[in-house]
């Protein structure tokens, strides 16, 4: 046998991969780990979705019919935590794992073993978080923002929630380090930075944001922990602490975090639209600069989440202006996408439909975001259903639509099978109609004065809530189609060609469908 295996990342060569379940537990292969992330994310999407169904069922009509108010708060809190950290982020990491090496011409991720750890932390973190539902005093119920002093009233679940958040943070940081190491060091010859596909660029910037803000989140939740158990008073007014400071530190993390949830989505859409418009992406370099500007601005706008805490006017003005500025690079992106379509030769397969849905509906979320940026108006919008409508437009029809678009786009490459196009289109149209029935009326509710995070409401809000709930149930059911389509495509179907889409450009499409376990048997040639 080989005398010296100096390359520890590859020492499993001697044994071959483990069989059965152990293959997935011990795997260090980016395709296996990407698949694990994506399936985990799909599972969490349904768990978080089930919680949303409980919320919408309770809000179907005025009066309390199904759950008590405290359980309702547990549902809103865990719905958010699970969707953000369990569904959207792992989906993006899964896509990164699958696609980054293939897009830059690398055989695998740079740190395969760390890749394995960063995934396998997640099931434990989320088991722990979901497990708190069965604890004395219930699951955390203070909202995903876990503001003190309220969060300090959490029962036995408190330390478990903090620990779960730490684990999610560690997982994200390891994922980000891997992404950075891979993109910086493992590009094929000729793949210069300004030739990288936009999905790679947006992920590089996202990973950078993750590295910058994850210690802030870790520090913030640890200080909550010490406040509760070790008699510190970072955030307790009684001990000389400052509860508002928690909000500052949280949103210093939180605002870059919301861009962590959307930048890779921009990348995905920027891959898909040129393919189906059969035309090169318009303004590639301005896309890169716009992404970088958004990332930079994300560090100086955090306090727009807390205009109502009573900041000095100068502070409010600064954060208002800075927030409004984000509209400029975001606008550039939207204009570039539209210009890419302009004078293209468009077809409308499911990935393109979701990408177009993304552009329209994310832009609507962007408009409400601009309205929210205006501090005086925000005094009315803040913590109402208007905000709920806003962030669901950017997260559901933004981030999740992009993830679904990406899934339909690359699924044939991953599995070697075409999905069922008819069903895919049905899934798109059902989702798009119902998601608007679900979230559009929430704008009206917020403007009419309905606060968010309430389990029951005055009868004047009854009609729009009922419409929203009907939309919610229908949207939830439509997503079962997605699971069905994905699973049936994995199991079989029409064979996909290597190119899959006739307009597709990029190294991943030069590989066979499905690709070899180790990508790039041929040295990739970057044109």
């Amino acid at each position, binding site marked *: 046998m080989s005398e010296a295996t100096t390359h520890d990342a590859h020492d499993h060569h001697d044994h071959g991969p483990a069989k059965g379940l152990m293959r997935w537990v011990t795997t260090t292969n980016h395709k296996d780990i990407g698949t694990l992330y994506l399936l985990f994310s799909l599972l969490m999407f349904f768990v978080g979705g089930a919680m949303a169904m409980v919320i919408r069922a309770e809000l179907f009509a005025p009066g309390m019919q199904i759950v008590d108010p405290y359980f309702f708060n547990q549902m809103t809190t865990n719905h958010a935590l699970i969707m953000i950290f369990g569904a959207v982020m792992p989906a993006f990491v899964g896509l990164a794992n699958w696609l980054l090496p293939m897009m830059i011409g690398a055989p695998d991720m740079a740190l395969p073993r760390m890749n394995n750890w960063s995934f396998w932390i997640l099931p434990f973190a989320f088991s722990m978080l979901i497990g708190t539902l069965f604890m004395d005093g219930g699951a955390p119920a203070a909202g995903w923002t876990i503001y003190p002093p309220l969060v300090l009233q959490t029962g036995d679940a408190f330390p478990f929630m903090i620990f779960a958040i730490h684990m999610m943070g560690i997982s994200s940081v390891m994922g980000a380090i891997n992404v950075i190491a891979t993109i910086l060091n493992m590009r094929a010859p000729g793949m210069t930075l300004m030739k990288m596909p936009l999905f790679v660029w947006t992920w590089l910037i996202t990973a950078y944001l993750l590295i910058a803000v994850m210690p802030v989140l870790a520090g913030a939740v640890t200080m909550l922990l010490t406040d509760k158990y070790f008699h510190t008073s970072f955030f307790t007014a009684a001990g000389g602490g400052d509860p508002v400071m928690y909000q500052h530190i949280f949103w210093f993390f939180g605002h870059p975090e919301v861009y962590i949830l959307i930048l890779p989505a921009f990348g995905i859409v920027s891959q898909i639209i040129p393919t189906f418009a059969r035309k090169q992406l318009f303004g590639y370099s301005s896309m890169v600069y716009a992404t970088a500007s958004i990332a930079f601005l994300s560090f100086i706008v955090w306090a727009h989440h807390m205009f109502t805490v009573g900041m000095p006017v100068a502070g409010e003005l600064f954060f208002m202006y800075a927030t409004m500025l984000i509209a400029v690079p975001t606008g550039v992106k939207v204009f570039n996408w539209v210009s890419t379509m302009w004078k293209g030769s468009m077809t409308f397969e499911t990935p393109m439909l979701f990408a177009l849905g993304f552009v329209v509906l994310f832009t609507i979320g962007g408009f409400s975001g601009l309205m929210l940026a205006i501090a005086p108006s925000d005094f009315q919008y803040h913590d109402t259903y208007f905000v709920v409508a806003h962030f669901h437009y950017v997260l559901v029809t933004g981030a999740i639509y992009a993830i679904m678009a990406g899934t339909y786009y690359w699924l044939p490459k991953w599995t070697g099978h075409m999905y069922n196009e008819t069903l895919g289109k049905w899934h798109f149209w059902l989702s798009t109609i119902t998601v608007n029935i679900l979230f559009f009326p929430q704008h009206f509710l917020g403007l009419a004065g309905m606060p968010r995070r309430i389990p029951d409401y005055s009868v004047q809000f009854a009609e729009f809530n009922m419409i929203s709930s009907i939309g919610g149930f229908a949207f939830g059911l439509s997503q079962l189609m997605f699971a069905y389509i994905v699973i049936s495509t994995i199991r079989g179907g029409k064979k996909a060609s290597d190119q899959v889409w006739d307009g597709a450009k990029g190294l991943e499409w030069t590989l066979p469908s499905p690709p070899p376990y180790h990508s790039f*048997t041929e040295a990739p040639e970057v044109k």
Partner: protein
Amino acid sequence: MVTTLPGPGQDDYRFILRPDRSLSWRGNLLFVGSVAAISFSIGIGFAVIGLWLVLPFAGLEIGLLTIGLYLTVLRRHQVEVISIRHDEVEIARGVDRPGSQPRETTTFPRAWVRVAYRRAEHPWYPCRLVLGAHGREIEIGDFLHVAERRSCATALGNMLGWRDMKSMPGDDDCGHRWVDDNN
């Protein structure tokens, strides 16, 4: 990437095998430095207003980032130099850095050394390029793309002779698809 250099002697050749690498040591160092500067500024900023618990997490994270990048750069800077001389073949492994010495050197007598290019133990993995003599074997170029391995194997095999080789394995034998396709 495989570079072939003739000399110094008349029948001498050197094969230099390197993995793809897209950023230098210095580039990585600059990157870590700039990330660390920002993360520590944020951490110190919060420490100044009394929220000092951000700083240790920033430290841990930057440590992890540094280790991760260091290992990556180290792997990307592996180099294998196969020197074929009049009477011996020397395989030197090390880190591709100015002034660094080979970490490990193996020498075979030229007359006895043979080249093998064979399937890996599992069909998922790429084919392996092996040099051996006197019952000792050493794998080279496991960081190379398959096409590079194949051409390197061909060049070395033609020069040194083949070992138990009936035919060159095809691409289909080297690295099976990610999912088994039953259809």
